[in-house]
């Protein structure tokens, strides 16, 4: 019996350019969904305390519940080695 898979075999065709990778984390990016500024501030403070040599930069999404625009994702990919984003509202 021959059947189709119900899921695609996704192949990345145009991944954005990535920031250089090093052994140590130097640049961290956070996506602020504007849903909880206190949480974001707390995460930034914690990261700076834990990784004093790393820079932490926050990008803000236009809306809290829609995906970040491609331009924001591409910019983050170019600039940081680690990106933090939340899911759920």
């Amino acid at each position, binding site marked *: 019996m*021959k059947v189709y898979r119900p899921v695609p*075999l996704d192949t990345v065709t145009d991944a954005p350019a990535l920031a250089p990778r090093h052994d140590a984390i130097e640049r961290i990016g956070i996506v602020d969904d504007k849903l909880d500024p*206190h949480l974001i501030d707390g995460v930034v403070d914690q990261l700076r305390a834990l990784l004093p040599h790393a820079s932490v930069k926050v990008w803000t999404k236009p809306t809290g519940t829609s995906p970040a625009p491609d331009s924001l994702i591409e910019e983050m990919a170019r600039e940081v080695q680690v990106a933090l984003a939340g899911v759920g509202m």
Partner: protein
Amino acid sequence: MTVNEATTLDADYDTLIEQFYAEGWTDGLPFVLPTTDRVDRMLDANGWDPDEVLGSVPPRGSQATRRLVAVNAVMAGCVDAHLPVVEAALLAALAPEHNLNGVTCTTHMCVPLVIVNGPQRTRLGFNATDGVFGNGSRANGAVGRALRLICWNLGAARPGDQDKSTLSHPGEWTFCIAEDEEGSPWEPLHVERGCPPGSDAVTVFACESPHSIVAIGSPENMLNRIVDHLSSRGSNNSEYRWGAGGQLLVTVNAEQAERFAADTWTKQDVKRYLWEHSTCKVRDRMDVGEEYTSEVGTRDGYLAQGLSWSDWSDPDADLTITPTPDDIHLVVAGGRSYFASVLPGWGPFGGFAATREVVASHTATEPAQSNATQPTQSNATQPTGSKP
């Protein structure tokens, strides 16, 4: 961006069934194996190009080729003639105002409800009356589940993964109703939303499961009971009365609709009454307490952008449950009885109703009516011609 390849598996029936479960390719319920013969026949019957892409399904973003849509429709139990309805439901769900990404990822329990209108309801055997939100109809069950399986397999809408719903509700298996147009004295939902009379269409609206309401007596008596549910605290509509708005769905059955019509209440009259009477005061929503600190921030953010429609500086100002009466969707559905229902939405965050006409194939075979409950005609006491 990704590209999708059609791939096949070849094994015996039992092995494939277990592989689908093991791979997480189904929602946990039994399913129909999407054999290449069956899927290709469905595509051919509808004249579909298998590789044409209908859109990317969030949050994962896999491309919904017509072949993959048909594969998941077969798994859900669809017949060939259901496929255009599934297509319209998917396109409606992908409309920006519906915000399927947010609807899937939210911790709220909302799920896209598919509402079917037009002659296709009777032609394809959709249930619009007795037990309309429940089981018993192949068309309701299969079309609703097809959309859910597409979200499951192409959007990765899986609990604990991208689907962050705290509780969800049984509509995540399948969530599809039809409107009882024959029992309604008013214009049907899709016509109200801009489709031509007599056309086939699908509206998708993300909402909670139905809340039952005993609504009896005069029109005002019925509506006041519904108002109490619209206004009750705890729903997203009630708690987050700010931002870009929110929407609600209310169903009344044919008997109730006739009662309204007998007293010359139009659909707009009913919606306006509900809207005008489901208000609360600003002060009633200022006591949100510490546990809602982040949401207060959200409200203030919206207010700072001028996106709220109420004067929050005045504690005595009225807050409406939705921005306009038309954000309360009114559908005639269910058996003839006392019961109406309210289905709260996701509040101002999205999941808003989106409607798409169904472009049907001329060749797809329609299902045998004996396979589906078909109470739409028998339940109606008013002929279709009585509608305005």
